[in-house]
């Protein structure tokens, strides 16, 4: 039952990482393409993809946090106390990013373009801050309710930064590519190439990050040879497949493999670390709520989670379809 609750939580975290990571990636591309005036169309294409999905994805972080509060409150208390510096930075960048988004989407025309650069920078900062925060519990640097300052210069942290940026860029580029496929061929081609490039960078950074974790968490190193390790490898293979399909130009397949690959990798990575929830300070069983509370949590999740996942999938399918007005504007074949 404890592991089932753990799995549900990490599904929510994976959804946050994949969807919000994609949003951070879109922000990154908005910033990059706004640097030159010749790429304004590309920035517009990125924003057109981003707008409809903006406000739901952050909710998966709330699902994860409230779930952790419900099922593993001790872990949440430990992480909250020890990761306060990283979480303050992550929250501050998230607030700044929201401010830039509001300005560029709803502000006066004269500030919209300038806000795109700020939105890009704050999106990258968000990806880095959340990446560093997410990697810390596996680093072995959390002890006695505090994070050792050595963490910030450790191999785990230094590899988490490029991984977070590259994975966000990959997820964002694949999403924009799919969205622009029937709307703007030039932008679609550009983002297809961006997706392939970012995917390769993400694979290299992912391999380095995995090696850094294996070196840091010596107590769970053997677990890479288990079923969870195989699942982690499957995630990497799926992302590799996504890169290949991006090169071949199969947008939908690349999208499915990209999102599925990162989600699988993240969940499998968490299972590799078991029995530790926070290595090596806190185990899963020590952090868990009493059995009846876990039952309540699972009942809630088994009713709510399928509803959430199906609704998000349906929404994304709907948002990728051209609207009636876009269909009417499309030139006849």
């Amino acid at each position, binding site marked *: 039952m404890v592991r089932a609750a753990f799995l549900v939580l990490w599904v929510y975290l994976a959804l946050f990482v994949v969807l919000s990571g994609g949003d951070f990636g879109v922000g990154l591309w908005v910033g990059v393409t706004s640097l030159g005036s010749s790429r304004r169309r590309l920035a517009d294409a990125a924003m057109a993809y981003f707008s409809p999905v903006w*406000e739901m994805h952050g909710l998966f972080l709330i*699902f994860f946090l409230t779930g952790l509060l*419900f099922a593993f409150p001790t872990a949440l208390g430990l992480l909250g106390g020890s990761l306060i510096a990283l979480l303050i930075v992550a*929250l501050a960048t998230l607030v700044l990013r929201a401010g830039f988004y509001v300005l560029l989407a709803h502000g006066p025309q004269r500030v919209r373009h300038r806000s795109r650069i700020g939105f890009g920078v704050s999106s990258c900062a968000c990806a880095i801050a959340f990446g560093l925060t997410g990697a810390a519990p596996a680093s072995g640097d959390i002890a006695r309710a505090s994070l050792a300052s050595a963490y910030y210069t450790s191999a785990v942290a230094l590899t988490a930064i490029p991984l977070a940026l590259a994975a966000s860029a990959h997820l964002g580029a694949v999403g924009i590519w799919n969205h622009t496929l029937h709307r703007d061929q030039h932008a679609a081609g550009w983002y297809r190439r961006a997706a392939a490039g970012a995917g390769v960078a993400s694979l290299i950074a992912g391999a380095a990050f995995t090696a850094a974790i294996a070196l840091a968490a010596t107590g769970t190193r053997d677990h890479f040879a288990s079923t969870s390790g195989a699942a982690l490898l499957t995630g990497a293979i799926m992302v590799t497949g996504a890169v290949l399909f991006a090169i071949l130009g199969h947008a939908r397949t690349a999208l499915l493999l990209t999102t599925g690959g990162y989600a699988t990798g993240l969940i499998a990575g968490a299972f590799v670390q078991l029995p530790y929830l926070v290595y090596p300070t806190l185990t899963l069983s020590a952090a868990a*709520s009493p059995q009846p509370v876990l039952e309540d949590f699972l009942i809630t999740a088994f009713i709510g989670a399928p509803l959430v996942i199906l609704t998000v999938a349906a*929404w994304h399918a709907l*948002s990728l379809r051209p609207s009636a007005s876009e269909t009417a504007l499309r030139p006849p074949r």
Partner: protein
Amino acid sequence: MSHLLAGRAQMGTSLEFHIVFASLGVGLPVLIAIAHFLGLRRDDQVWMRIATRLTRAFTVLVVIGVISGIVISVELTVLWPTFVARAGSIIGLPFSLESYAFFIEAIFLALYLFARDRLGPWLHWATLLPVCLGALVSAWIVVAANAWMNAPTGFKREDGRFVDISPLHAIFNAAMPAETFHMIAAAYLATGFSVAGVYALSMLRGHCGTYERRGLGLGMALVAAAIVPIGVSGDNAGRMIAQAQPVKLAATEGLVHTQRHAPLILGGLIDQNGNTRYGIQIPDLLSLLVGRDPNTLVKGLDSVPPQQRPPVVVVRNAFSFMAAAGVALGILAGVYWLARWRRPRLAEHRLMLLAVAASGPLAFATIEAGWIVTEVGRQPWIIYHVMRTQAAITGSPLVGVMFVLFSALYVALTLITVVALRSEMRLLPRRTLAPHSLTNRH
């Protein structure tokens, strides 16, 4: 500023910032749904324009509301790790359910905003109903979780640990009915006054067309619907506090000594010991309000040692402001509707419009004051009579930095929100409805 005070100030600032957006998130969908319904039903472009304008504003407010909501959920963990670790099993259920309710609201709002030309007109309108319901349920559950901190139940204590936990009992605690009902009614009331205020401001600037009149009437209609429930729930909340948190009641009313025939003190200046100067005493009224009998025993501040009392000056002044502003808003709503019924021209008198324009900010200030009463009035407890706030706060030295940083960020976000709202309103033509104007321009 002490470590504890910095932590409380940080949490308080975040909550006071978020509550504005959360309240509008509860009330605005209802007004949009009504305006959109009337627009579709009567094929009326004016009502559609009102729905469009409110929707544009709502999209900006939702972005800030979601972000400030995420900040609060993380802050709860960061600032109060001991509270989270110990009480998480009890209050995890309401917070979890609140996430689902808010998710329903968010996804249907996204459908309403962006799937307009992918859905039929009535189906498109129907997507607003889950938004209204999700917002309502979300508000109810999260306030129920707060009510649990005021009237904790659903567990037993054994060696300092919580055992025999029942999250459902925790949700349905003694403070829940009054607190949730009062807050939800307040959210509708503040939204109604705010929307009416925006249109009143427009009329003061000389735009007195059907569009402005209907907008003003729409906001004031929501006020009319919420004004009686808020009065009834306020009275219930007062009597609940007398039972569950008598010291909080004593602080709000400035009652020093436990007594029968307790007087109600209006106004005056209070000190930390609870002594009021220059106040007007109405004999027996507090006992009468609390127990419906002048002989009712009402506990005073002297029922607990001084170290177990909340900051009396803050609580009393916030309560006095809330009560006075609430009564003023009630009178304004009554006068407006009376004027509209008997003397329609008086309802558009400059003074009336000025009062309505000021009512939106005043209503939100009233909500803020109410939350100060709720939260500061519970001190020194984070869970009433179970866990002290001092015992729950993080030991990190970064709390002060966090308070300064986030206060600055909230000021910036407020300015950005105002700029964006003004920009959105200017972009929307006053007299003509742009095609697909409900959707984002991207």
